[in-house]
């Protein structure tokens, strides 16, 4: 049996109905570029002698800043047409952990989670309180409109039109599709 290489970093950008037939070459390439950039950023931290915690934060920030992924800039909309973001981080060495939930003004929620872990005695903060704490720790705050993206807005409108009670996972049907199917009647 061949020995597996030694990995130092792995990432994911969400799972779901992701099919080659629904993906244009250009969109696929766009995803690959961001994923590679995320790996690269995390790797540079590790290569420079940085900690795994810093590498994780660096890699995730890249994906949070991309509108392609359901985190940060590409976050989906809730029923009210708002973005609500969650993040967590854990240090395996110390078992320290930090998390934020339901935040709407933190550009990179992973940095807020890291601040909770490293600069508070708590593990989780939610909503306005988490935003206030992040701001005091120098985490970048943005206007909620920063998170608005057309594909995610369209996805919400599609669901509301079909069934206002339905929720949809990350890649349940949305922006990875080239075009809306003509016939949405299934079953």
């Amino acid at each position: 049996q061949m020995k597996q290489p030694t990995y130092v970093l792995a990432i994911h950008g969400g799972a779901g109905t992701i099919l080659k037939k629904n993906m244009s070459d250009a969109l696929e390439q766009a995803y690959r570029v961001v994923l590679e950039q995320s790996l690269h950023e995390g790797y540079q931290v590790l290569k420079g002698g940085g900690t795994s915690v810093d590498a994780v934060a660096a890699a995730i920030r890249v994906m949070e800043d991309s509108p392609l992924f359901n985190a940060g800039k590409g976050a989906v909309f809730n029923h009210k047409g708002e973005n609500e973001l969650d993040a967590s981080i854990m240090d395996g060495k110390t078992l320290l952990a930090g998390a934020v939930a339901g935040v709407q003004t933190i550009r990179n929620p992973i940095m807020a989670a890291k601040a909770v872990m490293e600069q508070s005695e708590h593990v989780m903060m939610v909503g306005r309180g988490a935003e206030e704490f992040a701001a005091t720790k120098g985490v970048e705050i943005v206007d909620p409109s920063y998170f608005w993206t057309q594909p995610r807005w369209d996805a919400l409108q599609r669901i509301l039109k079909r069934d206002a009670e339905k929720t949809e996972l990350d890649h349940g049907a949305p922006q990875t599709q080239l075009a809306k199917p003509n016939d949405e009647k299934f079953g």
Partner: protein
Amino acid sequence: TVGCVALDSYGNLAAGTSTGGMTNKKYGRVGDSPIIGAGNYANKQVAVSCTGWGEFYIRTVAAYDVAAQLSYSSAISTEAAAKAVIEKIGALGGDGGMIVLDHNGQVAMPFNTEGMYRGTITKEGKIDVRIYKD
């Protein structure tokens, strides 16, 4: 949802997960991503980040389950532990995936959906990015 697991040159692991949740969610619904042990976990042996239908990951304490299996039995591999958790989630009707990295630098990335955006980088800097089922 996005996530990352890393192993540094000191042999220490970390895991992170970040998400926007579900489209059209109501009432302040929160999934597994910010919940330590459900969507994210790391100890000295393994680091885990999850993505998928959050309620199932919370109910199965998915990320911690991988770590627990490895701590209870030296006979089980990281990949087998991760696959078992995804199978458990699938059996309950949930879907999604996870990335797992252990202290030996072995990685597992099981998922039960059509695809999962994922990537790895080796100690030597070799990048591998995948999207669909192999």
